[in-house]
C-alpha cells in the first residue's frame, strides 16, 4: 500500500482532501435535519454490495435511491449459469428482494434506467422522467455483452448471456428448438453452452482462439477441458470467425469466414463485455475504456463514485466478482465517511461452474519475464496442475482435475508468501507441505 502511495501521489492527494469536504457538507446537512442523498445508478451486484458495505458502517447516513434497468431486485448474476443448467431456481439466486429495499428505506426504481446526469445541478433523470437530486452519486452501470456486429446479429434468437431475461429466452428456445451455437469460448460461453446442453440442446461453441478460456487457462489445461466437455457432448469450432448470422424471421444458421455453415436456432454471444460508460461520458466524466477511478473508487468528480464492471482502475477493468467485492468495501467506506481504505488490485481466482469439471485458475497464469513454472501432468487421471512463480512467490495457478489445493495456493498468492522452502513439495498440495514443515 505504501508502494502505491508513492506511485499515485496525485490520486492520493485528491482522495485525501475529500473527507474534509464531506464532513463539512454533512455537518451542514445534519444540522438542517435532512439526510444527504445518495443515488445509485444500477441495481446490480456491485452497486448493492456497496450499499450494503455502507450500511454496515453508517446505516442511516443517506437517503438512498436506486435505479435499475432490469425489472427485478438484485440477483446474483454469477448464478445465472446454474439457473440455466437447472441446478438453481430463481429464488436461489436473488440477493436482495424488494422487501429488503423497503426495510432499509431504499427507494428502488426498477425497469427504469437513468438517462442523464446533470452534474452542475446534481440531479439524475430516469427514462420514465423521474428526477432525483444527489449529494453523492454512485455509478454501477455494469457492462453490456458485446454483440459481434456481423450481418444478422439483430435477428430474433440471437442473445447474450447477461441477465435473467437471457436465461428465460434460452430455456424457452430449448423447449422448442434443437440447435444452439455459442459464440465465444470463454468462461461465460462454456457455462452457457453447458446449460443449454443440460437443457437438451445440441450445442456448438465457436471460438476465435485455438484454445478455450485463454484468459484463465494455459493450452494444456484448455486441452483437458475441451476433451472433458466433448465427452459431455459439446462440440467445438476453434480458430473460427463468424461472418454472418443467417435467417429471415429468426436465426436459422451461422456462417463462418471459410464459407461453412451450421444450423442454429439460438445464438448466444459470449464474446466479451463492454463497460457501460455512455451515461458517464455524456455527463463529462473522464473515461477511457471505462470510467476512470482512483484508489478510493472516486471518479474525476469528487461527488461521484463508480464501482464494478463499469470502472477502470489503474488501467484494469473487471469482470470477476472478487475484485468487485473489494471495490464495494472500499467505496462503501468512503461513502460512509470512514474513508481510510484504498482499493488494491488482487489476484483473482476462477472456478468453472460445470458439473464434473474441476478447474481452478488464479492469478497470473501466463507468467512472463522472470517467472517460473511448476507443472504436473497425469492425463490418465485427468489431472493437470501448474503454478507460476516469481521471486519465490506464487503468482498464478491453473489446476485441472484436482483443485482441492486451489484455495491454499490462492492464499499464498494473496499473502505473497515466500515459498522457497516448500518449492519441491508445493505442487503436491498443502497436506504434504505441512507434513514436511
Amino acid at each position: 500500500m505504501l508502494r502505491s502511495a508513492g506511485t499515485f501521489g496525485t490520486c492520493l492527494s485528491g482522495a485525501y482532501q475529500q473527507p474534509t469536504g464531506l464532513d463539512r457538507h454533512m455537518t451542514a446537512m445534519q444540522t438542517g435535519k435532512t439526510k444527504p442523498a445518495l443515488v445509485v445508478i444500477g441495481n446490480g451486484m456491485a452497486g448493492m454490495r456497496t450499499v450494503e458495505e455502507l450500511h454496515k458502517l453508517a446505516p442511516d447516513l443517506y437517503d438512498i435511491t436506486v435505479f435499475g434497468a432490469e425489472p427485478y431486485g438484485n440477483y446474483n448474476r454469477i448464478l445465472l449459469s446454474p439457473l440455466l443448467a437447472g441446478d438453481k431456481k430463481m429464488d436461489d439466486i436473488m440477493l436482495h428482494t424488494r422487501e429488503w429495499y423497503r426495510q432499509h428505506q431504499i427507494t428502488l426504481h426498477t425497469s427504469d434506467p437513468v438517462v442523464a446526469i446533470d452534474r452542475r445541478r446534481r440531479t439524475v433523470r430516469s427514462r420514465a422522467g423521474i428526477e432525483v437530486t444527489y449529494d453523492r452519486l454512485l455509478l454501477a452501470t455494469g457492462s453490456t455483452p458485446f454483440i459481434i456486429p456481423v450481418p444478422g446479429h439483430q435477428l430474433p434468437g440471437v442473445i447474450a448471456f447477461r441477465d435473467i431475461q437471457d436465461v428465460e429466452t434460452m430455456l424457452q428456445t430449448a423447449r422448442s428448438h434443437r440447435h444452439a451455437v455459442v459464440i465465444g469460448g470463454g468462461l461465460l460461453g462454456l457455462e452457457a453452452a453447458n446449460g443449454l446442453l443440460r437443457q437438451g440442446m445440441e450445442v456448438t461453441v465457436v471460438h476465435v482462439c485455438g484454445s478455450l478460456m485463454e484468459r484463465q487457462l494455459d493450452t494444456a489445461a484448455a486441452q483437458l477441458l475441451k476433451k472433458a466437455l466433448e465427452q459431455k457432448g459439446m462440440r467445438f469450432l476453434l480458430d473460427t470467425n463468424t461472418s454472418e448470422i443467417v435467417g429471415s424471421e429468426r436465426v436459422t444458421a451461422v456462417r463462418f469466414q471459410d464459407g461453412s455453415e451450421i444450423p442454429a436456432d439460438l445464438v448466444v454471444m459470449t464474446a466479451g463485455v463492454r463497460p457501460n460508460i455512455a451515461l458517464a461520458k455524456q455527463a463529462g466524466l473522464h473515461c477511457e475504456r471505462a470510467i476512470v477511478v482512483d484508489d478510493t473508487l472516486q471518479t474525476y468528480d469528487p461527488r461521484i463514485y463508480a464501482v464494478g464492471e463499469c470502472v477502470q482502475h489503474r488501467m484494469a477493468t473487471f469482470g470477476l466478482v472478487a475484485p468487485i467485492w473489494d471495490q464495494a468495501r472500499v467505496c462503501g467506506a468512503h461513502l460512509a465517511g470512514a474513508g481510510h481504505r484504498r482499493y488494491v488490485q488482487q489476484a483473482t481466482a476462477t472456478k468453472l461452474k460445470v458439473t464434473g469439471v474441476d478447474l481452478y485458475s488464479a492469478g497470473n497464469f501466463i507468467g512472463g519475464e522472470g517467472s517460473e513454472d511448476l507443472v504436473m501432468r497425469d492425463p490418465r487421471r485427468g489431472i493437470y496442475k501448474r503454478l507460476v512463480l516469481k521471486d519465490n512467490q506464487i503468482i498464478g495457478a491453473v489446476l485441472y482435475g484436482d483443485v482441492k489445493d486451489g484455495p491454499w495456493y490462492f492464499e499464498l498468492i494473496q499473502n505473497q508468501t515466500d515459498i522457497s522452502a516448500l518449492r519441491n513439495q508445493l505442487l503436491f498440495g498443502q497436506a504434504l507441505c505441512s507434513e514436511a514443515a
Partner: protein
Amino acid sequence: MNIPIIPETASSVRTTCPYCGVGCGVRATVHADGTTEISGDTQHPANAGRLCVKGSALDETIGLDGRLLYPHMRDSSTSNLQRTSWNQALDTVAQGFSDIIKRHGPDAVAFYVSGQLLTEDYYIANKLMKGYIGSANIDTNSRLCMSSAVAGHKRAFGADLMPVCYEDLELADLVVLIGSNTAWCHPVLFQRIAKIRETRPAMKLVVIDPRRTATCELADLHLPVKAGTDVWLFNGLLHYLSQHGKTDAAFVAAHTNGLDEALAAAAASSADPLTVAKICKVNVRDLLAFYDLFASTEKVVSAFSQGVNQSSAGTDKVNSIINCHLLSGRIGRPGMGPFSITGQPNAMGGREVGGLANMLAAHMDLDNPAHRQTVQTFWNAPRIADKPGLKAVDLFQAIEQGKVKAVWIMATNPVVSLPDADQVQRALARCELVVVSDITEKTDTNDYAHVLLPALGWGEKDGTVTNSERRISRQRPFLSPPGEARADWQILCSVAQRMGFDGFRYQSVHEIFDEHARLTAHDNAAENTGRQPRLLNLSGLCGMSKTQFNAMQPVQWPVMPAAHDEPQGTQRLFTDHHFVHPDGKARFIPTAPRTPKNMPDQDYPLSLNTGRVRDQWHTMTRSGKSPKLNNHITESFIDMHPQDALLCGVREGSLARVSSPWGAMVARVQHGGGIPRGSIFVPIHWNNQSASDARIGAVVNPVVDPISGEPEFKHTPVRVEEFPVSWHGFILSRHDLALGEIAHWGRIQGRALTHYEVAGRNQISHHGQWARQLFGIHDPDADWLEYEDKTAAIYRAVHIRDDRIESCLFLSPRPDLPSRTWLASLFAKDMLEEADRVGLLIGQPIEKGIDTGSTICSCFGVGRNTICDTIRQQNITSVAQVTSCLKAGGNCGSCVPEIKKLLELTMAATEEN
C-alpha cells in the same frame, strides 16, 4: 531357470556356501516348481544352521539371467564375441597355448585362477601348468587376500598351517580381531563370538582396525591404529610381554628358535609404549590396556584378515602377531592361537593343491628338489616346474611387457580386482591369447577375452572346498548344467588332452579328489623320508568310492585313517608343540617395521583403504543379482571424515573423484563416522558392469609385499576432488535401458526392476522428450505422469502400463532425491492403487509412515525408519527387544551392530528431547 536335478518336492542337498572363508554348510531344497529354498545346514560344524545374509540370498543368485551358457570366440573381422562349438573353442585354446609354448617356452603362458574354484579344479590347473606345461605361472586371486598369511605361516611354522579352529574363538577369554571387519565379512564367525559373549560376559573383544567398523560395536576396546602400523603395535606387545615376564620360557626354549633377534627388533622399534602410541595414532592408555589384557589373559585368539595381509609389510605383520603367541606359548591349546581368517570359500583348498606360483602341490615346495621329485613321480609328469612362477601383479606386468603371451583366467575378474587395474586392461589388450572361463556373460575381464568358456556355477558344480579352519566340505550340485556349461576341471582336462598330455583322463571329480588325497599322503612319513612329515595329510580320505565321496562329511585336515569307518580329522595343530621346520621348532621372525611403500604427499594427501561391504561379494557377478543384497548399500561410496571432505571441497551425497598416480574412480561421498582423518575407504565390489567408473582397483598402487607378493590394497595415497555434474537422478525400470552417454551411472538389480543412479553434465533441454526417448515411449496417449520445475531443472516422470508401474525417472540438480524404497516396492504390484498413484510423483506414500527407510535387516526386509519408530514407540532398550518386535536381526544377525547403533542414536535423541 536352471533345471533342478531333483524335481520332487522337499528333496534337499547339503552343500557349502560359495562366499567367504567361513565355509558354512548350506541346505538347498529344490521345490517342484523349480524354486530353491536355502537354509543353514544345522549339521555343519562351521555354522550349525546359521547363515549370513549373503548365504541366505543364494537362491536369488542362481537364475540364468546374465549367465554365460555357450563357448564364444572373438571374430577377427568384427572383433565381437561369437558363439562357437566346444570343439572349436577347446582346439583354439590348446593350439594357442601349444603354439606359444613351442615358440617362446613354457614361461610364456600362464593361468590366473581363483579361490572360487573347487579344490579339484585347482588341482587339475596346477597339475597341468606345473607338471605338464612345465611352468609355475599359475597364480590366483588368493594372492590378493591371504598370501601374506601363507608366507607368515611358512616362516613361523615351516608350512602353511593354520593352528586353530573356530571353536577356539568360543573358548578364548580374549579375542583380538586385527584388520578384520568380521561382522560384515565373516558374519557367522562374528555371530558365534557374539553368542558366546552373551553366556560369558567376561570374555573380551578387542578390535584393531583403522576404521570404526560394525565389528567395533561389540568390542570392549577398539584401537584405531593408523594404517600400516601394526608391526609397531605387535612389536610393542612382544616387548611388553617380555618385559613383564608374561612368557612361556619352557615352551620358547624347547620349541622355538630366534627369540633374541625378534626381541631385539621389537625393542628397537617399540620399546616405548608412548612412541608406539604416537606412531600408531592410538591413545596410550588404550594401548597399554590392550597390552595388559593380552598379557594377563591366557586364552587369547588373535584373528586377522585382509587389514593385516594386504600390505607391503603383510608377512611381517603376520609374523609379529605369531611372535606374541609363540613367546607366551599360546598355541596348540584350546582357546588360543593366531588365526588367519581367509577371505574366499576355497582359498585354503587352492593352497593345499599348490595353486600359487611359489608352491608346488600338497604343501610341497618348488625349490625343494626332493619335493619336485616326489610330485613329478607321483604325477608321472613329463616335466616339473623348478622355479617360482609369476605372482599376480608381476604376471600382468609380464603380460603387458610381452613376456607372457597367453593367459587363461578362471573364475576371477582381474580387470576389477587387481591393483593398478587399468594396467591389467592394457596387459590384456595386448596379450596374444586371452582365455576366460566364467559363469557370467558380461564382466569387465570378458571384454578382453579371445575365447570365452562357460563354466559351472554354485549349485551345479561338484567337489570340495576347505574353509579357514582346515575343514574340507563338499559342494554338491542340485541344479543341472545350464546351456553348454562345463565344470572347470573338465574344461582343463579337455585342453590338456588336446595339448597331447596324458594324465587327465578322469571320469568323475571324485577321482581327482582321490589323487589329491593320495598325493598328500605320498612319500609323507617321517620314518620313510627322514624329513619332517607334511601336516597336510589326507590319507584318511584316500581310496573313497564315488558313493563314499558323495556322502563325505565335513572334516578338518590332517585326516588320518581311523580304526573305525569314519576318517579322523584334526581340530588343532601343534598340540604336541611339534612344528614342521626341519628342526621341528617354530621360528620367531624379527620384524623391523616399515611404513607403506607410497606415503601421502601434497598431491595425494589422503590414504585409501579398500574393503568389502556386508551384502556384496567380490565383483558382484553373483551377489549383484540379488535384489535383497542390493538393498543394503546400493552404490559405491567414498567414506571419509567430514573435515577432509571440507578440505577437498566435496560434500556428503555428492559425487567425487578419487585419483592416484595409477588411476581414478568416481563414487558418492559419505560420512559413515568410522573413518579417521587423513584416510578414506572405498569398497572393492563395483565395476564397469555396475557403474560408469567405480573400479577402485584402478586407483590402488601396485605395491606388493616382498615376500608374499600380496598387494597393498589398504594403503594408496590419493586425492579426492569434486566430480562436477549438473544433474542427479535415478531411474527404476522393469527393463534394462540403454543409457547412452551419461557422465555417471550405477546399475542396481532390484526385485522385478533395474535401478539406475545417474548424474549428468549435459543440459537436457526437453526433459519430457528425453525421458520418453529413454524409455522408448512413442505413444502420445501413454499413461505418463510428470512433474516439472523447469527453472529448478527438477523433472519426474512415471510410466504406467495397464495400471502397473513400468518405469520412473527422477531428476534434480542436487542429489536430494526422494527415497527409492517405496517406489521400488510398487514394482511388486500388479495393479497400482489410487493412493499409490497419488504418491508417485512425490516419491513417497501419501499416508505418512509407510516409508520404511533403507533396509537394515535384509533377511526380513526391515527398514531403518521402522526400527527407529519401534524403538521410540516401545521404549526399547535392547537389540533382543527389537528382534522380538520386528524380527530384525533374528535370522542371520549381521545387522545387529547396525541395530545397536540405531538403538543408541534413537535413545540418545529421545533423551535430548
